C-alpha cells in the first residue's frame, strides 16, 4: 500500500540554525499538510498546500516557516532560524483530492532544538 514517507526521522539542531524537513507524498495526491505535535500535547495544524501554493496557515506558521514542492514530488517544510520551542514531532499528511476525507500521515520527524 502506498505510504507517505518523511526524512529524517530525527534531527537535532542548534538554536538559530535552519532545518529542512522532507516529505514524499503518495503519488497523485493533491492536498498536502504539515502538522506538529509538541511532546505530550495535541497535534496542531501548521499549513495546507494545494496547487503549488499555501491555502491556509496557522498562527504558528510565522515568517520563520516556509513550504515548497520544488521538484513536484518532495514537499518540504523549512524552519529558517529554529527556536527551542520548535522542538516537536512534525507530521506530513496528504489527501487524494477534493471530496476525499481520509488523510494519510507520514511517520513524522522528531526535531530537537538545543
Amino acid at each position, binding site marked *: 500500500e502506498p505510504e507517505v514517507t518523511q526524512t529524517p526521522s530525527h534531527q537535532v539542531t542548534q538554536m538559530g540554525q535552519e532545518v529542512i524537513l522532507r516529505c514524499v507524498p503518495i503519488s497523485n495526491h493533491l*492536498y498536502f*499538510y504539515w*502538522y506538529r505535535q509538541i511532546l505530550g*500535547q*495535541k*497535534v*496542531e*495544524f501548521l499549513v*495546507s498546500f*494545494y496547487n503549488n501554493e499555501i*491555502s*491556509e496557515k496557522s498562527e504558528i506558521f510565522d515568517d520563520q516557516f516556509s513550504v515548497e514542492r520544488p521538484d513536484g514530488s518532495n514537499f518540504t517544510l523549512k524552519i529558517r532560524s529554529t527556536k527551542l520551542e520548535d522542538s516537536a*514531532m512534525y*507530521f506530513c*499528511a496528504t*489527501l487524494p483530492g*477534493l471530496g*476525499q*476525507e*481520509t*488523510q*494519510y*500521515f*507520514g*511517520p*513524522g520527524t*522528531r526535531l530537537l532544538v538545543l
Partner: protein
Amino acid sequence: SQQGEEDPQALSIQEGENATMNCSYKTSINNLQWYRQNSGRGLVHLILIRSNEREKHSGRLRVTLDTSKKSSSLLITASRAADTASYFCAELNAGGTSYGKLTFGQGTILTVHP
C-alpha cells in the same frame, strides 16, 4: 474556539474489557474522525462518521455521534494489549480554501494491561 476535546485524558483497563473514549466539539461539523497514534509514531486513520450518521462500526470499533450534544464516542470492544496507544478525534474542514485541514482534540491515552 477549541475543538474535539476528549475525555478521559488517560484510561487504563485490562485486556478483554471495553474502552470508551469521548470527544466534544463546539461548532458544526461535516464529519468527525478518529485517529490512533502509537507512542512516538505517526497517526493512523481509524474511522470516520458523518454529521448525518449516528453510529458506525468497523471491526471492534464503534463510533457514535450526537450532534445535539456535539459529542462523539469511540468504543473499542474486547480490548487487546496491542490497542495501547493514544486516540484522537479530529474535525475535518470540508470547505473553503483549507480543504482537508484537521483540527485535533487533546487525545486519550489508552493502556491495556495483559
